[in-house]
């Protein structure tokens, strides 16, 4: 479907570009927001990314999916904006997570209402570094493969796997800490 609309836009039917705006704005916004941590900035970045994609549409070689190519533009734009704004957050202990962590997170998380679940996920992601957030979003939310993440972020394949593993562990540690605090406050 992307190919069809791509051809129409390249033939001069500019209004058909709205298909890409509609289809990719949500995910692009999530990615940008996870990097810049500000709604207005993220929206602006996504708009600019669409504009950049439109300008270089003729250079898109179809070696990869349109989404991969487009998300790379979003990530690069977001990273350059984030670099000029604030330093990376401090890292959390990177050791392996014990099964008990995952089990307690799972049971505590499932006992929450949807709105609280969302709140805790957003809080946990906020405590992670930009790179960790980005990798988790791409892999677990957008379901990008390791190869695609390599293409989008420019991080080499082996490092993506390792960083993803560490990011996931960090997220569970934070979730566990926050959920335990919540449980204690309720008791």
């Amino acid at each position, binding site marked *: 479907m992307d190919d069809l609309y791509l051809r129409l836009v390249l033939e001069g039917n*500019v209004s058909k570009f709205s298909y890409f705006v509609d289809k990719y*704005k*949500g995910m692009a916004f999530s990615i940008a927001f996870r990097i810049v941590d500000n709604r207005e900035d993220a929206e602006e970045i996504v708009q600019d990314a669409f504009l950049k994609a439109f300008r270089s549409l003729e250079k898109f070689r179809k070696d990869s999916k349109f989404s991969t190519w487009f998300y790379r533009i979003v990530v690069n734009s977001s990273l350059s904006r984030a670099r000029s704004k604030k330093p990376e957050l401090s890292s959390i202990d990177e050791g392996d997570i014990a*099964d008990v962590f995952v089990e307690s997170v799972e049971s505590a998380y499932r006992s929450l209402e949807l709105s609280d679940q969302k709140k805790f996920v957003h809080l946990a992601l906020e405590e992670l570094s930009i790179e960790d957030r980005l990798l988790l979003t791409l892999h677990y*939310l957008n379901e990008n493969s390791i190869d695609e993440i390599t293409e989008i972020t420019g991080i080499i394949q082996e490092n993506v796997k390792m960083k993803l593993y560490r990011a996931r562990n960090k997220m569970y540690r934070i979730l566990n800490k926050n959920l335990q605090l919540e449980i204690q406050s309720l008791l």
Partner: protein
Amino acid sequence: MMKNSHIDKLTKEILKNSLLEVTNPDFNVTTMKKIQHESRKQRILENIFLCFLVFVAVDALIFLVLWLTGLNIFEVAHRLIGMPHQILFHAEKLKNSIIENAFIKYVMLSFGGVMLLLMLIESKLKLLDRSK
């Protein structure tokens, strides 16, 4: 030992709740306006380039015609030096051109070139509009 695939599945489930929506209702309209503006800018740039090419081609054609008909509007340029001479040279050149009809030929050829240019731009824009 908990399976990695289970942790992956749970992580996916947890992170599904991190999906964010663009809340600005005008987002699509604003983005498409920017895209349309960019497209128009690109078309104008393309047309300017086309104009330049046609201008060069028409001028080359004019000089070819002038050369073929034996009319050289620059023939005395090397003999005159200084501003007054330059002005006189141009005035004389213009007079000669009119008398020898070179100027009229030039105007007619330029007019033809501009008409050709307009037709090209118009047909290109019509093609673009039709494909919308």
